[in-house]
């Protein structure tokens, strides 16, 4: 029984109590006013839960150095928390980047009903654009644009670029739009590989990306920066962390912002307009919802989030190839929202976590699956190797979720919550 175990137990107890209180607290359900209905935190326990989540978020990477797993070099007196090794941090960084892209796509597909398979193109745009605007150009003399400014610029450009697709969505519906968006990905691969070669370095791939940092002015002292050194330590107010820990905080802070923006958006006038367009765009237009504006708006938001995901992707991996942004990558994002739950922000995050973990977990813990007789754990040219097995599972997940859990993981979550809430009268 080490200190880490005790912390884990205590944390588990706290999470349990908070969850139980949240589940049995019915008072906040009784809303009488519109203002009460559109609050962010419904009831005090929601605030407590959010605070607990925030504590977990801050302390997760730190805990691992505390129990000596390695990575972050921080003082031992820091906040204790869930111990995470660098592997798990990497998985979570992956999942966070996926989650941002998936939330954007869910706003477009799940809330506005526009089937788009072009997410890979916009993420690719974000990745290459942060390389260009954050590193290649130096508008203020010697220094490139500060990272936050470049990232903001890329996000805005992503929104504009995606809004340009909007007008096509006005003329095309459903499957026609899906085909056009596939065309966008095909065109995107050509643009990345053959046209903008001075930015993308063609098929060989672009190796230089600005590391994430929070700088106020070019060349000035940084508050937070990820150094590009091998092993990549990060600097935060004088403390040093591993690169993965720094990106964990950055990426999941972005996920929090994106989640807040989207949940607020879908409660707003624009959000309700989006859902009206999804349910029946002709009827929506007749009752006064501006269809054109709403669709273009949804595309712009989706493009902005995709560009943000691309910025983080490029900056974290520091190596990007045109073939990374193929049609298969788009399908991966659609799979996330199917597995998580179409039409649910929380579901997008669930789906991103599930898909990111599926891939990396099976890769790393092969013993989970190597008892299967048909599986080959060596890297043979043919045969059911582990990467192929992951893809087959991935395809099956899409089909099975569509067939048996059309509401996705979020639906399962809501159903189990309802079970406990109405117990002992639940079915």
């Amino acid at each position, binding site marked *: 029984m080490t200190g880490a175990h005790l912390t884990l137990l205590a944390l588990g107890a706290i999470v349990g109590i908070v969850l139980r209180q949240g589940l049995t607290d019915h008072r906040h359900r009784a809303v009488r006013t519109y203002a009460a209905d559109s609050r962010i935190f419904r009831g005090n326990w929601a605030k407590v839960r959010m605070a607990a989540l925030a504590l977990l978020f801050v302390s997760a990477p730190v805990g691992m150095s505390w129990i000596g797993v390695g990575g972050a070099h921080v003082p031992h007196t820091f906040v204790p928390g869930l111990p995470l090794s660098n592997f798990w941090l990497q998985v979570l960084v992956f999942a966070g980047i996926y989650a941002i892209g998936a939330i954007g796509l869910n706003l477009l597909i799940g809330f506005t009903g526009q089937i788009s398979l072009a997410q890979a193109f916009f993420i690719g745009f974000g990745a290459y654009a942060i390389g260009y605007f954050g590193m290649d150009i130096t508008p203020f003399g010697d220094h490139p644009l500060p990272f936050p400014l470049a990232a903001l610029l890329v996000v805005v450009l992503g929104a504009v670029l995606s809004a340009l697709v909007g007008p096509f969505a006005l003329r095309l519906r459903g499957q026609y739009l899906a085909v056009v968006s596939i065309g966008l990905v095909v065109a995107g691969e050509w643009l990345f590989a*053959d046209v903008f070669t001075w930015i993308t370095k063609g098929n060989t791939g672009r190796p230089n990306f600005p590391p994430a940092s929070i700088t106020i002015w070019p060349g000035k002292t940084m508050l937070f920066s990820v150094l590009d050194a091998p092993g990549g330590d990060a600097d935060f107010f004088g403390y040093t962390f591993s690169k993965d820990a720094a990106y964990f905080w950055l990426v999941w802070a972005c996920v929090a912002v994106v989640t807040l923006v989207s949940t607020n958006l879908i409660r707003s006038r624009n959000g309700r307009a989006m859902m009206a367009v999804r349910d029946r765009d002709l009827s929506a237009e007749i009752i006064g919802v501006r269809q054109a504006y709403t669709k273009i708006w949804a595309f712009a938001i989706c493009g902005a989030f995709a560009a943000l995901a691309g910025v983080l992707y490029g900056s974290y991996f520091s190596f990007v190839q045109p073939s990374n942004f193929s049609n298969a990558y788009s399908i991966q994002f659609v799979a996330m929202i199917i597995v998580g739950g179409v039409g649910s922000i929380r579901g997008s995050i669930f789906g991103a976590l599930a898909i990111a973990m599926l891939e990396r977990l099976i890769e790393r813990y092969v013993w989970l699956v190597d008892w299967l007789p048909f599986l080959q754990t060596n890297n043979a040219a043919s045969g059911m190797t582990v990467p192929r097995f992951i893809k087959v599972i991935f395809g099956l997940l899409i089909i099975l979720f569509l067939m048996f859990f059309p509401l996705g993981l979020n639906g399962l979550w809501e159903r189990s919550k309802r079970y406990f809430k109405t117990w002992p009268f639940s079915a």
Partner: protein
Amino acid sequence: MNQFFTFVVQGLSRGAIYTLIALGFVIIYKATHVLNFGQAALMSVGAYVTYTVNGGLKEQFPDNFRPWTIASFPWVVALLVGVLVTAAFGFLVERVVLSNFRNKPVFATIMATFGLAIVVQFLIGSIWGDDSISLKEPIGLRYYKVGGVSITLQSIVTFCVAVVVVVCFLLFFKRSRMGTAMRATAYDQEAAMAQGISARRVYGVSWAISAGLAALAAVLLSSGNGSSITQSSLQLATFAAFPAIIIGGVDSTNGAIVGGMAIGLAEQLMFGYQQKINNAFSTHIFTNFHLVFPYVIMLVVLLVRPYGIFGTKEVRRV
């Protein structure tokens, strides 16, 4: 000028292949009102089954004995077996998986076809590997000179086979009992069922025919000219066939033929001339532009006619 006609001949044979793929899309769309985004997987099944029956595996793994590597049949026999096996596979896929998606939203069905494509693609990869395959076919690199224009035997065979198959299909579709049932179901499913037509059977047969056409297209794509194919090259072919069906209109067999031929011609002409265009504008950006060109044409057509040239305009009520 001779070069131009050479490109045109290549374009026609390429267009014939796209026509076959596009017809496959249209048949499934007419029956179920859903595009099958997994057509590339059906093409792969056809190509790899034909390859195996043709004796390809026997040469690829001479000392690795597998029961199915013994066989080595001529190209034509292998082609027939491949088409029939793929048709059966398509029928099975419809019965086992897609019959569960009858009254589900379009989005769910589309994504199910994507999921199926992924599963089939990687299962094929696990059996046959990812290396390119080439068939032992009788066509080879032979070509004829007609007034300075070189016409490969491959393009003649491809074009003729496609024409015969398309004519047979249209006869079946317009004249036969089953074809009439298929058209009736496409026109009004409820009324057709009230007349005693089994919609279930129509769906199954549509998938089988579509899969058979896909297999034929894949085998034609991998025969002659020393062509070798991989799963990703088949996928590229379906990506070019998407614009073809959209241009023609997703629910029109005539549209698939016109669209397929147009896209094949446009793609091959762009492929042939892109180096010259590059040189003329002293740039490099037209490299590989032939992959994108079909989509550019599609966009132009869609902006003028949102339902394609021969497509029926959807009547929408509130």
